[in-house]
């Protein structure tokens, strides 16, 4: 006797049950994984921003010591040998007192040879604070003197690089070089041009594991000589890493178009506050007013229905579109040019639907019984709104307003069209003054290829995120402080 075919055996049934539960568990872990992946990505973002921004402290330490670097490199065939050029030395800084001048090359930081600016900063970050040994090579004129190239007129190629003038007291003079010596090689680096001669010496010195002389191969008359040139100079320079000092410098300095380490957020922060402040003046009263009309006064007709569709659609229009509109209406038609006021009005347009929606939701949350009670004791509509609805709705409205302001602070796209994408090194005062804002400053920096720009972009992102976090905290605080129960 066997069981009917339609009736599964108990074993099969249990197997099926296990399978179903297994599937259920698998799905559960899948949902958790998805959530964790989302959170992990965002954690990676934050960690990346933090680590990149941290280098700013080291950058600030070298800037404080008086340096501003730019990256150069020597080409030899297909190889590139990078070196750090000291492009600017602050007057009265400890670097200047040591005798470092702009045009010198930094080749050693701590006891490590450094070839890239980021290497130098990374070293500063790791070594202990205080007096730090550095090694540098003086600029071509102070190291050698003037060089002259002899050029074959037919092929227009350099045939020889001659020492035309020897700077008195220079390392070259001490090494015994003479005028009219032909420079042929610095260690293994052949010298093929006047500027390149100095670069070859820099790279040769930089490649030495410890500070030592560079061997120059020169031709004097018919003789080939090898002369040891003490190209590298050494001294100790105080490098102090201070978080607060870095922060203060970063938020109070203007942007420097040439040097990442000397750049600050001053004009961006001021611009953001000007634009957002002005924007709030327009959009908050208008938005809350419109919300009160739509919620408390307007009868429900097809017109209010249409308005509702319009407003929620407006909130979904891409922000860059508002830039085009703002450009056309405010900058052109109202002749406000691409200034603070035009930017603020454009942002007001963008944020208006958000304020209206948030305020309407806050108003809608007030139970009708409160309104009816007020009407019952003879209050007019305005009295109901003023004394009953608004006080209850205030926390909700505040929250909505603060959150929409914080959205506006992070918004970059519309303002790019209104001219905020530019170099501003002054405080905007008038309403037509050019300006820039935080997110656009970040956009500018992210797009720059120089070393250090990514780091200051990360630091600017941190500043922006902290401002947003503070505004969110303010929203929560307002909600708690003004919260009433009914």
């Amino acid at each position, binding site marked *: 006797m066997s069981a009917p075919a339609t009736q599964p055996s108990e074993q099969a049934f249990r197997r099926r049950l296990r399978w179903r*539960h297994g599937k259920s568990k698998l*799905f559960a872990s899948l949902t958790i994984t*998805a959530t964790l992946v989302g959170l992990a990505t965002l954690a*990676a973002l934050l960690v990346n921003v933090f680590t990149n921004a941290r280098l700013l402290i080291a950058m600030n330490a070298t800037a404080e010591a008086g340096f501003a670097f730019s990256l150069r490199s020597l080409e030899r065939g297909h190889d590139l040998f990078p070196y750090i050029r000291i492009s600017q030395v602050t007057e009265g800084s400890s670097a200047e007192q040591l005798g470092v001048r702009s045009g010198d090359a930094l080749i050693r930081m701590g006891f490590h040879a450094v070839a890239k600016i980021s290497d130098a900063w990374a070293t500063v970050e790791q070594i202990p604070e205080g007096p730090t040994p550095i090694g540098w090579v003086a600029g071509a004129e102070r190291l050698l003197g003037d060089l002259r190239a002899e050029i074959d007129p037919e092929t227009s190629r350099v045939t020889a690089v001659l020492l035309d003038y020897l700077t008195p007291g220079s390392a070259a003079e001490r090494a015994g070089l003479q005028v009219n010596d032909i420079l042929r090689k610095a260690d293994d680096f052949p010298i093929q041009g006047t500027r390149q001669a100095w670069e070859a010496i820099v790279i040769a010195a930089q490649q030495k594991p410890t500070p030592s002389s560079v061997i120059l191969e020169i031709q004097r008359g018919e003789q080939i000589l090898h002369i040891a040139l003490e190209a590298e100079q050494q001294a100790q320079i105080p490098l102090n890493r201070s978080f607060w000092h870095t922060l203060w410098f970063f938020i109070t300095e203007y942007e420097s178009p040439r040097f990442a380490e000397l750049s600050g957020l001053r004009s961006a922060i001021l611009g953001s506050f000007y634009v957002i402040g002005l924007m709030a003046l327009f959009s908050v009263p208008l938005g809350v007013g419109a919300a009160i009309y739509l919620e408390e006064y307007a009868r429900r007709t097809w017109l209010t229905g249409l308005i509702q569709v319009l407003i929620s659609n407006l909130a*979904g229009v891409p922000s860059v579109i508002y830039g*085009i509109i703002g450009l056309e209406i405010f900058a052109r038609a109202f002749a406000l040019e691409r200034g603070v006021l035009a930017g603020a009005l454009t942002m007001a347009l963008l944020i208006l639907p958000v304020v209206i929606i948030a305020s309407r939701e806050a108003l809608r949350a007030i139970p009708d019984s409160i309104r009816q009670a007020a009407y019952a004791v003879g209050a007019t509509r305005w009295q109901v709104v003023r004394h009953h609805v608004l006080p209850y709705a205030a926390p909700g409205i505040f929250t909505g307003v603060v959150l929409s302001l914080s959205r506006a602070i*992070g918004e*970059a796209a519309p303002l790019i069209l209104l001219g905020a994408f530019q170099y501003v090194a002054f405080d905007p005062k008038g309403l037509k003054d050019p300006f820039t804002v935080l997110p656009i400053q970040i956009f500018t920096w992210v797009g720059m290829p120089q070393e250090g720009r990514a780091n200051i*972009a990360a630091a600017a*992102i941190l500043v922006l995120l902290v401002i947003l976090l503070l505004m969110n905290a303010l929203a929560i605080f307002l909600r708690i402080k003004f919260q009433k129960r009914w």
Partner: protein
Amino acid sequence: MPREIIQEASSLQAPRGRYLKERLIRGIFFACAFFAIIITAYTIIIFAMGSAPFFESVSPFEFIFTIRWSPLIEPFSYGALPLIGGTLLTTGIALLVALPLGLLGAVYLSEYASPNVRRALKPIMELLAGIPSVVFGYFALLYVTPLLRNIFPDIQFWNALSAGLVLGIAILPLVSSLSEDIIYAVPRSVREASYALGATRFETVRRVVLPAAFSGITAAFILGMSRAIGETMIVAIAAGMTPVWPPEPLRPVMTLTAYIVNVATGDAEAGAFIWSTIFAVGALLFMMTLILNTISYFIVQRFREQYE
């Protein structure tokens, strides 16, 4: 006797000034609302007028269906298909990330997470939704692209893939928060009925809860899609500025929004023909998002009436 009553009543009447004030205040609020609407109408007029010169010299058909976009370099050509393709490619990649992650995350939050976890994660999600898009652009260009280079060695510095992936992460909080609201709103009784029939959790979610929330989830996804299409900074930073057809994930592309930024950050003179291309591209973008938003809006409106 009646006379006294009438007198009483008239003294009860409020002073006339009070009604005037009421009307005035009503008028002010009406003006606010009216102004907000006027602006909308004005917007559409501006687009129509601004893109008119463009469509006088370029037919809409040529604009949408030809594949060479070269508004700055001669010979000029105004086929926006590379821009549309770039937009759809980044948006598509973004949706491939945001749809599964967003939906599974939403299911976890509303169906599996303990109330405490849910209470903790909800505000975090709202906070994440507020992260400015330049931050994501930075992340795409300087973190995700180098990471992807380990997998695809020939990926370019600017590419659609990393911009699209990060775009997906950027719209994730929106998609998953909206879907979660909708899934959570499915009444408990519906779930319990399913459990009572012996269904497992997965079966309940798949056969009962998700179908019930389907329209709302669709609306959330459409909204996320519209957000991805209109998103500007991420693609402007990380996807590049090269209008190519056909767009490829590992190479730079140019989206509609990136084109607008590109012209705005360039040196194009105001009033030149190049500005009318911005209007045309903007109008196209506006139409695409408007259609999606309206669909989403009506789905939500219809859905709302189901349980109330």
